């Protein structure tokens, strides 16, 4: 199979507890390319069964720079409309290489469950003992239970379990690009987590030609992003990082990305400690600059960072929690975040993004870095390349991406075809 996919769609029926494998036809990928556009087509096909779709982009898991993105698509509890949440870090590649390019989760389970996908096998497993655990405990438990630290986990905390409107899907331990309350959908479905391990492979049409073009492209990408880190992203997004520097341990990157825009910060040990010490939980990954800024407007930086950890553990959107927070002392702040996650709490007046910009169905994972933000993000969500990288690198143009599609598949698709798929998302 040489159209950049493993070849299977998994349909999970939570009502019956059964799973079904559907062949991923080449024609479907030619029509939709992948990612959010393919998710949307699957959403329409299964919409009578209250679906959430988890999908990988066309280039997800490949050697094209920034190929980290997976996409979740569902009707948002926040907006009431169908929306797409990007799942970066290592989720997308792990999903595609698990053997399932797309997962359609239908209905609601009677009891708490988690899904375990690996080696073209899908299990629905009881999660009674996981329900009530925070996301860090859940990821630790699953990695231990499944015997592999490289298992990627999408999970919910108390906010999701209690179906709080702004509950966020948490990726392993960290906040994700879910700005649409998809954590509440996991909660409603009684799904505590999805665990993935990808040990498959993706074939391509012309490996030699691909490698030559990819190396040439990587050279240009590296030149474009040279020296760019979180400081660049923050400046472009209009966010102050004042006070963050003493906490930064190392800048990290998502899968195969040359732009390490995610700083890991330490506050439970000195940030310059590079070895693995006995401090099991030294800090947190800053994955949402808007979330950090929402806290840091009111709190000092250390309390802000500890508040981010708390949001990750209970699985609530950091921008929403940061906007709602009234206390300033650490213990009070942590208690206040806890008070936001019972089901009866109302977060509905708070939008999880900057109100001055229309993020539509895509959310604020990628700040408005370019004038053609909407098209860039749509292409990114379809092809599985991080929108931040796509915005930072002019050389990752539509023409170049189409050329890479053709080299990997042997097709003769065009920019017009890509535009037509993009128009399915942005009209």
């Amino acid at each position, binding site marked *: 199979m040489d159209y950049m996919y493993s070849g299977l769609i998994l349909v999970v029926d939570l009502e019956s507890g059964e799973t079904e494998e559907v062949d991923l036809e080449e024609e479907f990928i030619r029509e939709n390319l992948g990612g959010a556009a393919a998710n949307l087509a699957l959403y329409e096909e299964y919409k009578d069964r209250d679906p959430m779709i988890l999908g990988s982009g066309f280039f997800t898991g490949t050697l094209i720079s920034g190929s980290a993105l997976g996409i979740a698509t569902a009707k948002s509890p926040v907006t009431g409309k169908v929306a797409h949440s990007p799942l970066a870090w290592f989720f997308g590649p792990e999903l595609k290489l698990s053997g399932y390019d797309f997962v359609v989760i239908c209905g609601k389970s009677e009891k708490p469950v988690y899904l375990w996908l690996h080696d073209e096998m899908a299990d629905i497993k009881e999660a009674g003992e996981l329900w009530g655990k925070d996301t860090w405990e859940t990821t630790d438990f699953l990695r231990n239970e499944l015997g592999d630290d490289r298992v990627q986990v999408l999970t919910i905390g108390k906010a999701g379990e209690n179906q709080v409107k702004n509950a966020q899907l948490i990726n392993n*331990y960290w906040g994700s690009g879910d700005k649409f309350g998809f954590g509440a959908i996991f909660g409603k479905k009684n799904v505590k987590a999805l665990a993935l391990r990808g040990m498959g*492979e993706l074939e391509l049409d012309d490996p030699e030609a691909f490698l030559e073009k990819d190396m040439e492209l990587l050279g240009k990408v590296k030149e474009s992003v040279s020296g760019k880190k979180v400081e660049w992203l923050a400046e472009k997004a209009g966010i102050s990082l004042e006070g963050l520097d003493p906490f930064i341990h190392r800048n990290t990157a998502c899968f*195969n*990305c040359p732009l390490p825009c995610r700083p890991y910060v330490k506050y439970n040990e000195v940030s310059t400690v590079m070895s693995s010490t006995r401090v099991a939980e030294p800090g947190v990954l800053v994955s949402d600059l808007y979330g950090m800024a929402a806290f840091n407007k009111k709190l000092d930086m250390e309390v802000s960072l500890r508040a981010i950890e708390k949001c990750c553990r209970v699985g609530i959107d950091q921008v929403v929690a940061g906007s709602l927070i009234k206390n300033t002392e650490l213990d009070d702040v942590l208690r206040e975040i806890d008070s936001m996650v019972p089901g009866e709490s109302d977060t509905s007046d708070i939008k999880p993004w900057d109100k001055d910009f229309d993020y539509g169905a895509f959310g604020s994972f990628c700040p408005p870095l370019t004038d053609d933000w909407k098209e860039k993000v749509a292409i990114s969500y379809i092809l599985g390349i991080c929108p931040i990288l796509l915005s930072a690198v002019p050389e990752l143009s539509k023409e170049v991406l189409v050329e890479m599609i053709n080299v990997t598949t042997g097709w003769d698709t065009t920019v017009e075809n890509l535009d037509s798929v993009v128009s399915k998302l942005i009209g």
Partner: protein
Amino acid sequence: MQMEKKNIEPMKCTGCGACELACSFYRDEVFSTIRSSVMMHKEEKKNYFGIMVKVVDDLLLGRPEGIEFDSEGSKSKEQEGASGKPILMREECDMCKGKVLCAKLCPMESIIE
């Protein structure tokens, strides 16, 4: 020909895993991570990461603390991963017979030709 200490600069690494993908691509011309002679070692909650390279009769470890050969450490549990293919069962690095794809495709130049 195989990877040497001079080929790794661990503190330039951002943990992206491109090296694994590059190595598997050299082996089989597919996108995969499982056939690689290079493996990321990660303790995610601590943001502790480095690479392990299977070389002849040994492991080359590139970690934040430094670079060393470690055949004893290669048997420890955390460097295997029960559902993955243990690093010791993987093919030994041969520098892609001169192509050194992991270095060419490392976006941070943490692996050097």
